[in-house]
């Protein structure tokens, strides 16, 4: 396999009952780049990253991470290989403090080195701009801050591949701008797979875009190419371009 690609899927398929949520998805993710996965509602984006991260069992097909076949691994083992995942619906430890949340994320690898762990947690909180809220209980944070905390928990793991499932959903305009700046600052540091509805965010951050529609890959390419692609326009706008 190509050393350029950190992640590849081959024939990845998910069938719920008789419904095909994903059909034979062959996907390659370039290392060190930001790739956006877009598509209309129900296109199968979350199902796809669910199968990549191991949350959802694939009906058939394979997932390769850094050349290794990880199709048989449970979710926690995939995370241990260097894959981080943020949930579409905010999922933090609501009863614990912000600091403890990030500590748990970083602690998987650093728990036996307390001083390193502390430095890591503080630097991550600093980076996403919530270090002044370290002692607050996560459940008491505003929705926007909980989203940011969730991203902090991903960063704290120093992931090789960071999967963000609709991270800007429900964020205020200014928070979206901060998020875009954060993603840009990560470019080159890690590989990002971004599921996103907000096209402004996609255009501002993505190096590559993959479009899913009806559980299949509709188009792939640079933002420029996708922008011009007639099939994508038709999928999004429902117009028949050929007519």
């Amino acid at each position, binding site marked *: 396999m190509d050393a350029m690609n950190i992640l590849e899927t081959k024939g990845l398929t998910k069938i719920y009952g008789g419904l095909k949520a994903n059909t034979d998805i062959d996907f390659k993710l370039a290392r060190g780049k930001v790739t956006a996965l877009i598509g209309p509602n129900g296109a199968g984006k979350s199902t796809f990253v669910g199968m990549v991260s191991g949350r959802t069992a694939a009906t058939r097909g394979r997932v390769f991470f850094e050349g290794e076949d990880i199709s048989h691994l449970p979710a*926690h083992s995939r995370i241990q290989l260097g894959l981080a995942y943020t949930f579409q619906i905010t999922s933090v430890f609501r009863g614990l403090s912000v600091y403890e949340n990030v500590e*748990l994320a970083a602690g*998987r690898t650093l728990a036996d080195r307390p001083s390193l762990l502390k430095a890591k947690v503080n630097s991550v909180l600093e980076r996403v701009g919530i270090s002044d809220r370290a002692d607050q209980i996560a459940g008491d944070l505003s929705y926007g801050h909980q989203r940011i905390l969730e991203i902090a928990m991903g960063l704290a793991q120093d992931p090789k591949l960071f999967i963000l499932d609709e991270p800007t959903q429900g964020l205020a305009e200014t928070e979206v701008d901060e998020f875009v700046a954060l993603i840009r600052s990560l470019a080159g540091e890690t590989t990002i797979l971004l599921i996103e509805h907000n096209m402004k965010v996609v255009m501002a951050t993505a190096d590559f875009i993959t479009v899913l529609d009806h559980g299949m890959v509709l188009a792939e390419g640079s933002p420029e190419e996708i922008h011009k692609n007639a099939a994508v326009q038709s999928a999004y706008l429902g117009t028949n371009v050929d007519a």
Partner: protein
Amino acid sequence: MTSFNKSNLLHFGVLAGLVILFFILPTYHVGVLSRVMVMAIYAMGFNLLFGYTGLLSLGHAMFFAAGMYGFGLAIKFGGFPVPAAFVVGVLSAALLALVVGLLALRTAGVAFMIVTLMFAQTAYLVVLYFGKYTRGDEGFILQQAERSLFGLDVTTETGRYFTAFTLFAVCFIALAKLVQTPFGKRLVAIRENEERARMLGYDAGRYKLYALVISGAVSGLAGVSYALLFGYVGATFSTVQYSIFPLLWVLLGGAGTTIGPFIGVLFMFYLIDISSGYTNAYMLIAGVVLVLLTVFAPKGIAGTLKARVFPWMP
């Protein structure tokens, strides 16, 4: 003062208080405290699984009984010396917890409650079935001579109190330390949000199994202690009632706090003891107090203190 120092102070303060109480309390209350400390070990074992890991078992009596019978039968029929029988008892409970865990942890929530309840019921029936050895509901007595621990007579008030105290202190401090380790914090993470914990790379299933085995072993240690100190082994201790008790104690005292289980046992014992001095309908009084506490202090006594007054409380 840091919260770490404060919690150490609290823990050692409780232990120092228990030593002092021995010298100032009348005999009756010294006897009560011995029993309360043994049952508090049981409650602490339960608390690790319920309060910290978020798994509600309705069958912990089987672990208490496994310890009790493992110890009692090893002495009665195996002719084991007390220290060896002690180990046999604790290991029996740990092994039972491992087997039950491998099967029951495939379920979660209400199903886990029902499966553990059924396993405990089976354990109770097994005790009755082998009545020839266990003597069923009637139980059997361990004579004074069979209960000498390193030459110490645990049947005297002093010997019993300080043996109970030592066992309680070891479990109390060990569990308080355990929940502060990364392992303990991961159990709390699983309680708070299991899916998130898994998606941080933690093998939640494995952590839950470890928690159940430790919880079962500590509950078994309480069963061993009871048989050792009070000389009685009987099927009553494997009934469903003894699975519900630790739940009540922990809920009353404060789930997920280090001091809660002890407070819960102490409170419940004196609630029944004092109310029965006034009326035959003492269970009614106990019931009303329990309902009031659940309504007005749903986090239990220690839990409410922690939430309102002492946020540093462990």
